[in-house]
């Protein structure tokens, strides 16, 4: 409430108080550390005075009506410049302003320039008390409104932080985003995130948000250089310091704190398996109180960051693991290739040996596509392009169709089918002749659970085609279709070979 603008409700009350008590002066005095500040006043031309000159602070702890009939004779006020000087106050009566929380914040007082040995009448005293309660109520109401507005601010800041964390793909991005929001909403000079070493002796500050003109503290810091900060953090308790100059943990050596312009701070530990692994740091340049709501807010921010970082770490581990599994699998495929190649060296008919190697390579290419998607959905076109690339003639194959997600198994079987079709086209079909080409198109028929994918393979510009007399492994693979369950139609048309492959879209994505 200190230094807030004038308000009619309070102005009305001091006016009524001065009329009720028949005094030229009435004030609502709010007591600060070093001054008293007048929320409302009549008959006085100053807005505040030093605390030493305040009559309202006399016996304030007793929280009772204070009446001084003759200020010139009372030892507590006789030497007060307001009494001895040109203002020449003579009489004082003040009722305490007690908030619902029990805290006394000041007085509603009336002052006369003449002493009043008789003081106030009982009725005036009663009315002054009642007016004092009105002031207290008004203060409480404003405080409640402020608190709920503040809570709302903190809540929306927390929501914003949650969204930024979810959208981040790097831990540093998360902590920087959280620090920026915290710094803004708490109106502090600095907000940062630091990783703490296992002994909780050193903090490495990574992301660092600072108010304009405030220096960064990014880098390594030793807790011991700043005071007795470790104990709270080791115990997992938030380190909350409202004034580094007076707090027992920092007062012995304030130079280090002041060198960084830190007057007050909170270090909120981020815990993992019962251990403090990081801290969320908030610095204010001047001493300030940290409300329970603000501390709760910081606790939630720290928790969210912890969960966010853990999610990222799990994802990264999964990616590393997938990469490792894939690497081993491909090495194994390479070994199979090496063994087969050496074993089959004596075989004089080279074609089956070469087919084997090409199928192996096609399977491996589909595997690469899946790995890039972390073994989730691979897009049909991407898989088709990878297989065409392993066979060659990519410039004579046109691909066209909508985006269709393929599950891991469907991607592998689709790649083998396309590989066989490509191989056949190269050997007997349109790709074995100059100018021949392939159109590979696909469409989706229907929608929802009954939607089906139809893949159309059309060879054009090749030699006259004839149905093969025997069915080799390659044509059996093709007949297995997109999901290994058939749905394949092959036509040896005069224009060129054609294949239609059908499968349920739902089945493809799940397989």
């Amino acid at each position, binding site marked *: 409430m200190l230094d807030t603008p004038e308000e009619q409700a309070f102005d009305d009350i001091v006016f009524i108080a001065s009329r009720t008590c028949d005094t030229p002066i009435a004030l609502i005095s709010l007591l600060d550390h070093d001054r008293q500040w007048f929320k409302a006043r009549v008959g006085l031309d100053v807005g505040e005075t030093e605390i030493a000159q305040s009559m309202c602070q006399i016996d304030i702890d007793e929280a009772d009506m204070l009446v001084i009939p003759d200020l010139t004779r009372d030892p507590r006020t006789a030497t007060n410049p307001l009494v001895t000087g040109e203002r020449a106050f003579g009489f004082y009566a003040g009722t305490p302003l007690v908030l619902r929380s029990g805290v006394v914040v000041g007085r509603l007082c009336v002052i006369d320039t003449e002493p009043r040995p008789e003081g106030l009448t009982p009725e005036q005293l009663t009315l002054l008390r009642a007016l004092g309660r009105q002031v207290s109520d008004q203060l409480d109401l404003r405080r409640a409104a402020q608190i709920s507005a503040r809570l709302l601010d903190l809540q929306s800041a927390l929501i914003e932080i949650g969204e930024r964390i979810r959208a981040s793909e790097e831990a540093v991005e998360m902590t920087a985003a959280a620090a920026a929001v915290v710094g803004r909403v708490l109106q502090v000079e600095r907000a940062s995130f630091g990783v703490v070493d296992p002994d909780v002796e050193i903090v490495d500050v990574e992301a660092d948000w600072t108010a304009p003109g405030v220096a960064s503290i990014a880098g390594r810091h030793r807790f011991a250089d700043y005071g007795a900060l470790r104990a709270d953090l080791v115990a997992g308790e938030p380190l909350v310091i409202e004034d580094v100059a007076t707090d027992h943990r920092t007062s012995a050596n304030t130079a280090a704190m002041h060198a960084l312009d830190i007057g007050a701070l909170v270090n909120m530990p981020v815990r993992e398996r019962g251990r403090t692994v990081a801290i969320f740091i908030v610095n204010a340049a001047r001493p300030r109180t940290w409300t329970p709501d603000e501390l709760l807010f910081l606790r939630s921010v720290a928790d969210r960051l912890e969960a966010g970082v853990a999610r990222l770490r799990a994802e990264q581990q999964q990616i590393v693991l997938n990469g490792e599994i894939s690497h081993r699998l*491909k*090495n194994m495929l390479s070994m*199979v290739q090496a063994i087969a190649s050496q074993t089959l060296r004596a075989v004089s008919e080279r074609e089956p040996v070469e087919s084997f190697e090409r199928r192996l*390579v096609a399977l491996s290419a589909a595997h690469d596509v899946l790995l890039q998607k972390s073994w989730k959905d691979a897009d049909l076109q991407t898989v088709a392009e990878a297989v065409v690339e392993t066979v060659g003639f990519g410039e004579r194959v046109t691909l066209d169709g909508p985006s269709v997600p393929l599950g891991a198994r469907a991607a592998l079987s689709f790649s083998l089918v396309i590989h066989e079709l490509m191989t056949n086209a190269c050997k007997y079909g349109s790709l074995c002749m100059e100018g021949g080409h392939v159109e590979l198109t696909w469409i989706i028929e229907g929608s929802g659970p009954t939607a089906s994918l139809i893949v159309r393979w059309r060879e054009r510009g090749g030699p006259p085609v004839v149905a093969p007399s025997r069915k080799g492994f390659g044509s059996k693979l093709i007949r297995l279709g997109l999901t290994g369950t058939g749905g394949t139609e092959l036509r040896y048309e005069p224009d060129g070979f054609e294949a239609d492959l059908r499968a349920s879209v739902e089945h493809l994505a799940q397989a």
Partner: protein
Amino acid sequence: MTNSDQGSIPIVLVVEDEPLLRLFAAQVVEDAGYEPVEAANAAEAIAILESRPDIRIVFTDIDMPGGLDGIKLAACIRDRWPPIKIIMTSGKPLPPRTVMPAETVFFAKPYRQDRVIASLHTLAA
């Protein structure tokens, strides 16, 4: 320093830590009509390169244990023996920001022998 005796069979240094795959790669080189020399790691490869100025092509795996992988080996070759051509292979996809040295060809493992052979012919020409 290389190419000193034109007309002789080009020599290809095969670098691969897995013995079976090294054997296979050497066979591919032979099938291409060249003479393979084998190294089990990058350090061995460098020692061979230092003692044999007649190596024309290095065919190396990327993922090898120890400090020096195939990418670093390739960079070293580019630096110390610029005329040598390089073929690299790996069971892992190339890391996104890998800078391949000039005149270097990459094949994912398992590779098609016919393509590696074609590439050897191009590089040796």
